[in-house]
Every structure is written in C-alpha cells, then in structure tokens.
C-alpha cells in the first residue's frame, strides 16, 4: 500500500474531471429534454410525453442510445483527418471552460487568478474546431456555416470581454472565487445591482453577446436550417454530431455559469438567511435559470440577418460597452 498523501491532489483532480464530464453529459441530455418541453409549452403544446413515464423524461436517454448506435458516416469527399478531429476540438473547447467554474467556494477545478480571461481564451478553440468541421466536410453549407460562426464568435468576443471587464474592475481581480466572494451577503451586493445602471447594461450586453458566442437563437445563423441545412455540422451523423450537440449545450452552461458567477453572486443565496442551502445548488440553479432564459429567447425571437447581427455587435454593443467601461472605471476610481 503506497501512501496516498502526496497524490491526493492528483486523485481529486481526476475525480473532478470525471465528475465534470459526467455532469456535462447529463446536463446536456436533460437540457435537450427541457428545451423541447419549453418549446412545447411556449407553443401551447406538450413536448415529449410518451417515452418514459413522467412527461417523457426518458426521451434524451433514448435519443442518446440511438445516436450511439447510429451509422457513423464520413463522406467520401471529406478531409477525413480533420473531419474526425473537429468534434473533439469543439468538445474540448467547451469542456475546458468548466475548469474554472466555481460551483462552490472549494468546489472549483482550478482557481486561476486569470479565471475570466482564461474562459475567453479557451473559447477560441471552439472557433477553430468549427472552422475545421466546416472545411473538412467539403460541403458548401458547412463552409458557409463555419465562416458565419467564426465571424460571429470573433466579433462578439469583444463585447463579451468588455462586459466581463466591468465586474473584474469592480472586484479588482480576475479570479472567479474572489469575484464571487466580493458579492457575498444578499442580492443587493451582486454586481448586477451595484453601480446601477452600468452593470445591469453590462449584464444584458454580456448575456446577449454570449448567445451569439454559443450560436443560439436569435443568433443561430451558423446552423440556420432554412438556408444552410445544418451549418457546419451538416455532414456529421451519429455520435460525432452528438459531440457537437454536447458541446453546444456545454457552452450554454459555461456562458450562463459565468454570468451567474460574475454578475449574480455565484454560489451565494439572494438572502443571507438562505445560505443554509448548499452553494452548488444556488450556483446550478442560477445557471439553469439563465439557460432557461436562453431557451425562452430562442423560442421567442426570429433569426437575425447577417448584417443585422454585425450591426448589433459593432454599432450598438461595442460603443455601449466602451462607454460603460469608462463610466464604471470612473466610478471605481472616484470611490477609491
């Protein structure tokens, strides 16, 4: 029996990584179910009902098994190496974001002191993965989808980063845990409600821009099925496509979790007396609520045009973010 003491960190890391992958898969599965239920009820219908007992809750399991045993097509004209590599890259880009999400004060993959910056950095892997998928498919729709996706994600990274800078400036740190710790003690301390209305505008801009980051409606141009079949994953089938799907829902969780962390007080309860409920529940609850809002928006709004998308980013979000940043900077400096 070797002494486990020196390896405790290692073991905990491995367990944490496995746990995160499991959590991501389960979350993605049930998010698809939730999305279909939300879509159904918004349209006055029911959504999955028959598979499994209560409200079709086994539907995602059936879908997952079916996708696993589906034929895996690699088109003859595709660039086979890149075609196989792309889903993993996208998935890794999504999974890497989970490393710095603070589920609780000590339930965090790694409390990097550049946490927020790290998340913005690793999303660029997703861009490359999507470009790779689009090109490797050797399909014009995939190609258009990939280029739209890359253009949109790179453009919207700027308002996202500028909006995230506002809580970073207010907290004086980029570490996720410290940012959350600065928001302790009731919802009036959350950054979204401090320095009204600047941080509220920052939150709204972040949330909208993050929709574009994860290719969700109304910014789902890259996978616009009425014009581009299915965008960059047109040629993907079975489990490879499921990885893209997993990555999309993982990304939804990551961007919502970051919003919950830096604007909505992370694992802290809105009222101090509710702190008896454990932190991870608050964190996941807030994140799940934001994911719900993303779905709600998706089934409310139509898709934007490309020029409208770029107009919103460069002519509205960007100047407002800069002005916001300047004003909050002044506020922070003047307050000392």
């Amino acid at each position, binding site marked *: 029996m070797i002494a486990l003491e020196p390896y405790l960190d290692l073991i905990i890391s491995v367990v944490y990584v496995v746990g995160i992958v499991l959590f991501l898969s389960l979350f993605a599965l049930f998010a698809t179910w939730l999305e279909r239920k*939300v879509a*159904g*009820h*918004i*349209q*006055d*219908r*029911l959504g999955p*009902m028959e598979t499994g007992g209560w409200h079709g809750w086994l539907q995602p399991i059936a879908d997952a098994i079916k996708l696993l045993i589906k034929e895996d097509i690699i088109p003859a004209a595709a660039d086979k190496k890149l075609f196989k590599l792309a889903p993993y890259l996208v998935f890794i880009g999504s999974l890497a974001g989970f490393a710095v999400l603070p589920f609780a004060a000590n339930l965090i993959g790694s409390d990097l002191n550049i946490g927020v910056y790290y998340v913005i950095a690793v999303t660029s892997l997703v861009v490359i993965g999507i470009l790779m998928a689009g090109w490797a498919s050797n399909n014009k729709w995939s190609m258009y989808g990939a280029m739209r996706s890359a253009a949109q994600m790179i453009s919207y990274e700027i308002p996202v980063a500028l909006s995230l800078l506002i809580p970073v400036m207010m907290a004086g740190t980029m570490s996720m845990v410290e940012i959350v710790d600065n928001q302790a003690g009731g919802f009036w301390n959350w950054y979204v409600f401090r320095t009204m209305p600047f941080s509220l505008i920052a939150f709204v801009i972040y949330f909208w821009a993050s929709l574009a980051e994860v290719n969700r409606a109304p910014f789902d141009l890259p996978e616009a099925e009425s014009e581009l079949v299915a965008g960059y994953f047109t040629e993907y089938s079975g489990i490879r496509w499921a990885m893209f799907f997993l990555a999309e829902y993982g990304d939804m969780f990551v961007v919502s979790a970051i919003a919950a962390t830096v604007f909505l007080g992370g694992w802290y309860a809105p009222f101090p007396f509710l702190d008896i409920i454990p932190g991870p529940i608050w964190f996941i609850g807030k994140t799940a609520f934001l994911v719900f809002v993303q779905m*709600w*928006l998706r*089934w*409310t*709004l139509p898709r934007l045009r490309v020029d409208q998308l770029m107009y919103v980013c460069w*002519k*509205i979000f960007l100047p407002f973010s800069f002005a916001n940043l300047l004003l909050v900077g002044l506020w922070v400096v003047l307050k000392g």
Partner: protein
Amino acid sequence: MNATYKYFRDIYLGVTTVSLGMWITFRHFFMPTITVQYPREKLIYPPRARTELRNAIESCNGCLQCARACPVEIIHIETAKAQDEDNAGNMPDGKPRKLLVLTFDVEMSKCVHCGLCVEVCPTESMHWNNEHEHVTFTREELMRHWATYPPEEVRRLQERDEILKAEKAKQAAEAAAKKAAAGDQPAPKPVSKPAADGAEKPAQPSAAAATPAIEKPAKPESGDGTDSPQKENGKEKA
C-alpha cells in the same frame, strides 16, 4: 429622420419589442395546451369528414355508380344476377336483392378522397368511417377487398351468369330471327349486345317481338354490370 435619433430609436424599439415578445411567450408558457394526445385521445369528426373510405357491402346493390363517378378509376366491381337459389335476401330497404356483388375492390393507395363515390351512392353504403388507422406495411394491403365471396364462389357465380346470359342471348337471337322471318325487317341481329342496343327501334313496330325486345332495354339499366366484358366496355366509354 435624424441618424442619431434613428439610432437610439432603434435601440429603444429593439429593447421594448424583445421584452414584449418575451412577455407574450411567457404568458403562453402558462396557458393550457391544446394538444390532443393522439393514441389516447381522438378527435371526433363530423360524419362527412373525409377520413377513411369504407363500403358497407351488405347494403351495396352493385349499381356501379361509384365506379363511374370515380375520377381516378380505382373502384373495381363485379356483380352477378341473383337467382332464387342464392337466397340473396333483401336489401336494407326491404326490396329483394337483384345483384350479387362478387368483388368490390378499391385501390386505396390511389384514392384521392374526393368523396364523389360517397355522393352518388344511392344506398349510402359508401361512407366515411371516421377512423384513421388504416396504415399498412405493404402496398398490396392497401387494395381493399370488401366483397365477402371466396374466389371459387366468385368463379362459379360468374360462370353461371355467363351461361344465363348466353341463354338469354340465344333467346334474343331466336326471337330476332323469328321476327326477321315473319316480318319484312332488313338485317337480322345475331349477337346479343348490338341486338340489345339496336333492338329498341326495330322492335317498336312489331308487336310479336315485343316480349324479348322489352327485356333488352331493361338490361342496360340494371344489368350493365352483370358480366365483366360489358362492364369494361361501359367503363371505357365513360
């Protein structure tokens, strides 16, 4: 419009309309759903709704009106004259059954659900069934066989009908020959069908030939479909 004004107005409109839209969908989120959970609950349609086509064969008198009305010509009916030995029974309206419906086949795979056959049916045996569960695994199953006679019975009745008809034709030919011999009519009509068509006009002056000649015009009314060749002919013309 001032560009600056338009810019801020656009932002204002964007924010307000998105909020309004979200409010509307949010309300719908809590509205009761209108879904009919199909295999468990079923909608009941009015009787004339074009659902599934059916023929109540016991009330079908084999008049062929549906087959003639059908725009896609998918109703195939064969009948035979009922004889006393058949014990054909009565129609639902109480009158004795004159025709046995040997086959009543509908190629449901080609049906356009226009409803013309239902409109023209004098006995209302063609009807809409108010059901939808008529999905099949093969195309052959979509051929609807509504007549209940087994194939050998159909063959026997058809043969019997042939014999009866041949007898009748012979009688008619004999009658015509007799008439030709008796009177000063031009050409004798040896074959049954032209005789049936042509007998009407020449039959009128001669009272002696009246009995068979009157029977003949009666034949196309009720018995255009007594045997298949005649039916096919009639259909081709239609």
